[in-house]
């Protein structure tokens, strides 16, 4: 359950950023999570409540922007949608690809007050 680590990492960043601008709390947090990032969004949601307890994020609205996977085949240059990290190129079946999108795991924005 590394989602707890991730949630606590998010709390740490939010605490730091809030302190930097002398704000009291976060009213909204926007996260960008790629489908290939290794994070289960359900698990993150599950641990969220206990992770944010007594922190600046306790009352914050959480918005998760899910980034779909996009790969580019190294052999034939075809760009294709990826659901799994092991998806091969649908054009030439090659396993060699670069992942263009879907590995994101970041805090996009915080709305503080």
């Amino acid at each position, binding site marked *: 359950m*590394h989602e707890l680590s*991730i949630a606590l990492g*998010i709390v740490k960043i939010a605490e730091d950023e809030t302190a930097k601008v002398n*704000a009291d709390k976060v009213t909204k947090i926007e996260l960008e999570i790629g489908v290939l990032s290794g994070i289960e969004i359900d698990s993150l949601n599950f641990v969220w409540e206990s992770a944010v307890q007594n922190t600046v994020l306790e009352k914050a609205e959480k918005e998760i922007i899910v980034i779909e996977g996009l790969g580019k085949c190294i052999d034939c240059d075809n760009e294709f949608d990826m659901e799994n*990290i092991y998806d091969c190129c649908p054009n030439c079946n090659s*396993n*060699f690809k670069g992942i263009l999108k879907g590995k994101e795991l970041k805090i996009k924005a915080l709305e*503080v007050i």
Partner: protein
Amino acid sequence: MCGTCGCGTDGNGPVILKPGEQTLVHSHQEEHHHHHHDGHTHAHDHSHSNDQSHVHKHKVLEIEQDILQNNAVLAARNRGFFEAKNIFTLNLVSSPGSGKTSILERTLSDLKEEIPFYVIEGDQQTLNDANRIYALNIPVIQINTGKGCHLESDTVYDAVKKLEIKNDAILMIENVGNLVCPSMFDLGESKRVVIISTTEGEDKPIKYPDMFHTSDICIINKIDLLPYVNIDVNKLKNYALQVNPKLVFFEVSATTGQGMEAWYKWLKENRV
């Protein structure tokens, strides 16, 4: 960012132990809780100035910060330290029971006269693995992660400091037995080695793709059990290559020593 942060307050944080020593060193130094901000925070004032009676102090901070950034920064520091001292560092990952410690024991026993080794053992509890390595006269540090399911770069940094590693050595970091969580946490290693044994399912690479995707080497252990187990090694390799076409395989038995020579050859050739 620690596995169970609140560390130091709830006693669940990682603990660093050295066999033969009673002292406990708690791992989290100040820097761990310090972030490097490089001024990319943009504060936008969203006050509604046309509404005099109702001035909000809402601000949107577009921070665009990678959640794993802290771990990545400290991993980079570890990597720089290893490179400067010419230390070849391997991060060994697998499910519990694949034989990480047995492969380590065999490798260390066979090569310790030729190569200086150091070991960091990661487990949730006990000094058992560190004691097995200590019995071979190899300097070893045990990290107990408590409730944490993986090692992170800050704890490894602390363990490395305590190990006092000499130049031109090999550092083996045995991660917590877990095929999921350790995949996301760079420790600053030179290469990541995933170990799978013939008693596991051949479709494990696609069931736990992240670990195989982020590894450089795949050791298939317990190869001596092939006559007794129902596994198709070629199928296993094909699944693994589907996830990561660059994986390099070694088929070994830590018990009988079968196949270990090829692994040793790779170690010696790559440590420079």
